[in-house]
């Protein structure tokens, strides 16, 4: 099975004259099967890149909605090794690129090489690493090269020019542009800082700069899409899954992608 990368999906969206839509859901929330169904619903409703988050005990970059969902997933018995089943379940049924968002300790615990090998075998495209910066990522560079995985690091409004450059050079697939100084969570408006972060990433040579944090509505997608290569929605989708199950996730994805 050939793996679909986020770079391919973003390029395809660009060819259609639109930003790629990237949707986040926690793995194992509310249970493993439902999280696969919800991810499939994303792909069937216009989401190009699926980002599955590994529930972690200490998610310092996440706000209340995602924290509560991941706490529930862990309480329901989620185990890290199930992420590979989930990724396989999604890649077998969709043409989306499947990324995993993970805090770093679960990867370290399993072993970086072991994690990367099993993830690639499951059809995964790459990892988004919110608490791993390139400075500490030697093992991950080696493993991602070995298994041909995308490395998505983050840049923030606070990132100095030299750090933006280093992070862009270290990343592959896309660069995750944090739109504001804060944690995940839906906001009514997109931070005015977002465009400057994207401009900095492009200025440093990034081909694909995608914006996340605080994005929840179709008009946000359109607004960000005017300057960024992709738009990342998380909390709003998690809340939809929590409140309305898989059908609600499908409806919101369709609305975000402009299909509904």
């Amino acid at each position, binding site marked *: 099975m050939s793996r679909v990368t986020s770079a391919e999906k973003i390029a395809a969206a660009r060819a259609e004259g639109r930003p790629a839509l990237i949707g986040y859901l926690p793995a194992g929330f509310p249970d493993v099967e439902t999280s696969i169904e919800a991810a499939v619903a994303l792909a069937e409703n216009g989401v190009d890149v699926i980002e599955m988050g590994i529930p*972690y*005990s*200490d*998610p*310092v*970059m996440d*706000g209340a909605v995602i*924290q509560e969902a991941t*706490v529930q997933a*862990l309480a329901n018995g989620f*185990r*890290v*090794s199930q992420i590979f089943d989930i990724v396989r379940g999604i890649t077998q049924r969709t043409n989306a690129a499947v990324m995993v968002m993970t805090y*770093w*300790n*679960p*990867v*370290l*615990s*399993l072993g970086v090489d072991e994690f990367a090998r099993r993830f690639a075998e499951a059809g995964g495209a790459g990892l988004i690493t*919110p*608490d*791993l*910066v390139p*400075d*500490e990522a030697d093992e991950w560079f080696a493993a991602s090269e070995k298994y041909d995985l995308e490395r998505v*690091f*983050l*840049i*923030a*409004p*606070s*990132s*100095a020019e030299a*750090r933006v450059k280093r*992070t862009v050079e270290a990343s592959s697939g896309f660069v995750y542009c*944090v739109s504001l*100084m*804060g*944690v995940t969570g839906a906001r009514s408006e997109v931070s005015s800082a977002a465009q400057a972060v994207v401009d900095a990433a492009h200025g440093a040579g990034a081909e694909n700069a995608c914006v996340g944090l605080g994005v929840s509505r179709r008009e946000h997608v359109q607004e960000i899409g005017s300057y960024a290569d992709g738009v990342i929605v998380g909390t709003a989708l998690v809340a939809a899954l929590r409140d309305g199950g898989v059908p609600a996730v499908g409806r919101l994805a369709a609305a975000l992608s402009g299909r509904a």
Partner: protein
Amino acid sequence: MNASDDSLKHASGPYFGQYGGRWMPESLMAAMDQLTQTFEDAKADPAFIEEVKELNRNYSGRPSLLTEAKRFSAQACGGVRIFLKREDLNHTGSHKINNVLGQALLAKRMGKTRIIAETGAGQHGVASATAAALMGLECVVYMGAEDTRRQALNVARMQLLGATVIPVTVGSQTLKDAINEALRDWVANVDNTHYLLGTAAGGHPFPAMVRYFHQVIGEEAREQVLAQTGRLPDAVTACIGGGSNAIGIFHGFLDDKEVELYGYEAGGDGVDTGRHAATITLGKPGVLHGAKSYLMQDDDGQTIESHSISAGLDYPGVGPEHSYLADIGRVHYEPVTDTEAMDAFKILCRTEGILPAIESAHALAGTIRLAQRKLAEGAKPEDTIIIANLSGRGDKDVSTAAQWFGMLEDDAANTPEGN
């Protein structure tokens, strides 16, 4: 000071062997860089050094005393000479004041107007609120909801000092979750806010910086024991949660190879019960709160909730320099159970008229064990000297201790915060 190549003192970070580093979100990297630069500049600035010294002397009350505990020694330690480094006598009642004054000065140097802090037992929260009041800074303290119940009087102390205390209701509702919430606050408010981390853990420069401000403990203790006994001690002991008081006193003796160093972790109900906070004893290396270090974690890398009667030791991580010192064998780390700590707590109260923090009682219990071991190995008690770091006073722990020893009426025992 010691400039030789094999010196263990003044390790600058970011790495201590394989430990330390900066395993944290990019959003905070600019603030960590700014803090590192400000700290390095301040250390090289005689005016800053003098300002810290002046505050230590005329505000905190340093140097803290070194008190020989003769009746404690006679009753529990077979006559081995025990000296207590009296950090309990500092303003606010613990070693924590050393670090908060230094960091609050750095916050002002950076032009920040607000400090945030985490607290377990409340000692660091009270110290932070104190420094904020002294220097005219806004102060917000994150405290696990369970800890706000265990330490209700300290919550009131922080509020009296003008701080806002935010109970943290996520996760295990203890120290690690308070740190998570403080980090979330910091990400959102980093422009005007300094995160005044209270222990020698976290991403670089925190471990080396927090140790720097606590080094005074070990430097004083070394001078004092030389002055009082004419020689160095055989051993130095301290309790370890994150490990700030321990690294502070150990630092003074790291390069004195003949001085044994012992850190006592919280053994909770016992290390074979799963209910403990013995991170180095039973943990394995991982990353949490910005540093690679020993960590209590399950097979999936999920942090395990720790347990201890002592809120200040109830933390599943430990400072990275301790992990390094453990691996190279320079410091020995052992667990002390709740019961051992409370037995030592009671002995110190009755023999010396000193009410120790329950955290510090872990060091006392370890000291008793160590003294008995020394005697069993044939040491002459009068020729054996141990310094125990009495990191804080136990006024905050009166209700916990009274409950432990069954001194409270049933009603009061159910509501320790009510007295």
